[in-house]
C-alpha cells in the first residue's frame, strides 16, 4: 500500500470504495506477533508468540480471560487489545448479573464488532489497531471467532493472525478437517506445532509462547510455563537450534503507525481486506 490522497482520515472514501485508514489498521494487526486459535467440538485452544522487546523487559500479555467460558488472544496494538478485553470482561459480568447465565460467545463478538465499526465512521476516532481471536464455550458448543479492526467478524475452525501467520495458516489448512474430533491433547499439540511454524527455525520453548485452553468442564485458563514446556518436550517439537532469527516486529506501542504504512509491501492486487 502506498500513501495517497484519500488516506488522511477514516471518514474519506477512495474512488475505488475503500477506507484506507481501516486497511492500515488491519496492517497493524499483521505487524503484531503471531496468535493462533483452533477448536474441536468441546475445546478451544489459543496460543501466541511472546517476544519481549529486550532481554531486560518482560513479555507483553497477549491472552486475556474475559470470563470462565471466554478468552481472547490479540495481535497488533496491544494497548488497544487491553482496553477491548476490559470491555469484554465488563460485558460478561453485566450479562451474568442480569441473566444469571454466561454471555453467549456469538453475542459478545457482535458487540465487539459493533464497537469496532463505530470507530470506522467517526471523524474524531481511529479504528482499533488490534485483531482479536475470541475463544469461547456456550450452549451451542465451542467457538472460535476472529474480530478485525474493520468491524467484521468471522467464525473459524482454526485461524492465525499476526506476523508470519501464513506459515501457521498453511499448517492448519492441511489438518483442520480433523480438529472437530480431536482430543484436548491433540488440539494442544497442533497449536504448538502451528506456533513453531511461525518461528521459522527458532527453537520453541515455553518462555516465548503462551497457551490457553477452554473446554467443557474446564474454565478458561492460561497454562503455566511448566505445563507448556512439558507438552513441548512430549511432542518433541522444540525444533533445530536457532540461527539468530531476524528481528521480528514485536508488538510496539502506537508510536510507529507510519512505519507500517510505509513498508512498501508489494502493491497491486491485494483485495481490500474487507472483501475477505
Amino acid at each position, binding site marked *: 500500500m502506498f500513501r495517497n490522497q484519500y488516506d488522511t482520515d477514516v471518514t474519506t472514501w477512495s474512488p475505488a470504495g475503500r477506507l484506507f485508514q481501516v486497511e492500515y489498521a488491519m496492517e497493524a494487526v499483521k505487524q503484531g506477533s503471531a496468535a493462533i486459535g483452533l477448536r474441536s467440538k468441546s475445546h478451544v485452544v489459543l496460543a501466541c508468540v511472546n517476544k519481549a522487546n529486550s532481554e531486560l523487559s518482560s513479555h507483553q500479555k497477549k491472552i486475556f*480471560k474475559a470470563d470462565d467460558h471466554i478468552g481472547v488472544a490479540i495481535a497488533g496494538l496491544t494497548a488497544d487489545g487491553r482496553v477491548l478485553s*476490559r470491555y469484554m*470482561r*465488563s460485558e460478561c*459480568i*453485566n450479562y451474568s*448479573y442480569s441473566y444469571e447465565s454466561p454471555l453467549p460467545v456469538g453475542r459478545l463478538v457482535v458487540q465487539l464488532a459493533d464497537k469496532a465499526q463505530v470507530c470506522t465512521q467517526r471523524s474524531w476516532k481511529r479504528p482499533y489497531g488490534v485483531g482479536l481471536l475470541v475463544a469461547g464455550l456456550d450452549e451451542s458448543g465451542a467457538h472460535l471467532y476472529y474480530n478485525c479492526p474493520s468491524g467484521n467478524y468471522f467464525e473459524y475452525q482454526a485461524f492465525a493472525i499476526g506476523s508470519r501467520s501464513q506459515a501457521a495458516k498453511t499448517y492448519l489448512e492441511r489438518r483442520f478437517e480433523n480438529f472437530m474430533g480431536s482430543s484436548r491433547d491433540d488440539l494442544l499439540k497442533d497449536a504448538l506445532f502451528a506456533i513453531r511454524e511461525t518461528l521459522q527455525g527458532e527453537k520453541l520453548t515455553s518462555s516465548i509462547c503462551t497457551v490457553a485452553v477452554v473446554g467443557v468442564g474446564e474454565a478458561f485458563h492460561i497454562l503455566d510455563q511448566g505445563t507448556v514446556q512439558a507438552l513441548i518436550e512430549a511432542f518433541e517439537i522444540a525444533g533445530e537450534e536457532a540461527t539468530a532469527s531476524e528481528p521480528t516486529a514485536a508488538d510496539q506501542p502506537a508510536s510507529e503507525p507510519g512505519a507500517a504504512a510505509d513498508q512498501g509491501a508489494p502493491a497491486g492486487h491485494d483485495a481490500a481486506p474487507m472483501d475477505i
Partner: protein
Amino acid sequence: MTKQQANWSPYDNNGGTCVAIAGADYCVIAADTRMSTGYSILTRDYSKICKLADKCVMASSGFQADVKALQKVLSARHLIYQHQHNKQMSCPAMGQLLSNTLYYKRFFPYYSFNVLGGLDNEGKGCVYTYDAVGSYERVGYSSQGSGATLITPFLDNQLKSPSPLLLPAKDAVTPLSETEAIDLVKTCFASATERDIYTGDKLEIVVLNADGIRREYMELRKD
C-alpha cells in the same frame, strides 16, 4: 392536620439469625434457614450464607431481596478485582468493600444485617460485623438478626475477652478449638429457636480453615 404517611414500604423483614465466630486458624459462620414474612413462613430451606471469595463468607439477615442484590453486587465486584489483580480478594479487603457498598446507598439502604467471616492475610480467623449502612468493626464473634438479642449476651458470657483497658491487649480471637466453636454455635441456635419465632427449621454452618470450606447442617425446631 397530621403529616401524610406512606402506606406502602419498599422493605420487608424476612427474619432469621446469623452468627460468626473467629478462631485462631478457622472461622465458623452460621445462619438458620427459615424465611418468613409477618407471622407466616415463606420457606424452611433458604440459605442466608454466600461465599464471596475463597477465604471470605458472608451471612446476612433482614430483607432477603436486598440481601440477594447485595450478594450479586459484591460477587461482580470480586470478579473485576480478580481480573485486575490476578488473585482472590482477602477478607479484610472484602470487609472494606462491603462497607463502602452499603454506604453507597446511605439514603436508600440495603435492609441487610451482615456478618462477614473468613481468614485474614495471616490465616487467622476474622469476623466483621456491620449495620445496614456500612459501619463495621473487626470482632472475635458476632450475631445479627431477629435472634441476635438472645444470642449475643450468651456469646459475651462464653467468649468475651477481658476489658480492652487491660494490658497486655488480649487477642479477640477465641482460644476454643474448631469443634468446640461449632458446638457453641449449635447451642446458640437451639436456644434462640426456643424463644424467637423467626428462627428455626434448620441451621446451616459453614467452616473456613486452611483446608478449605466445609458445610454442615443441623435440624432445629420447626414451630
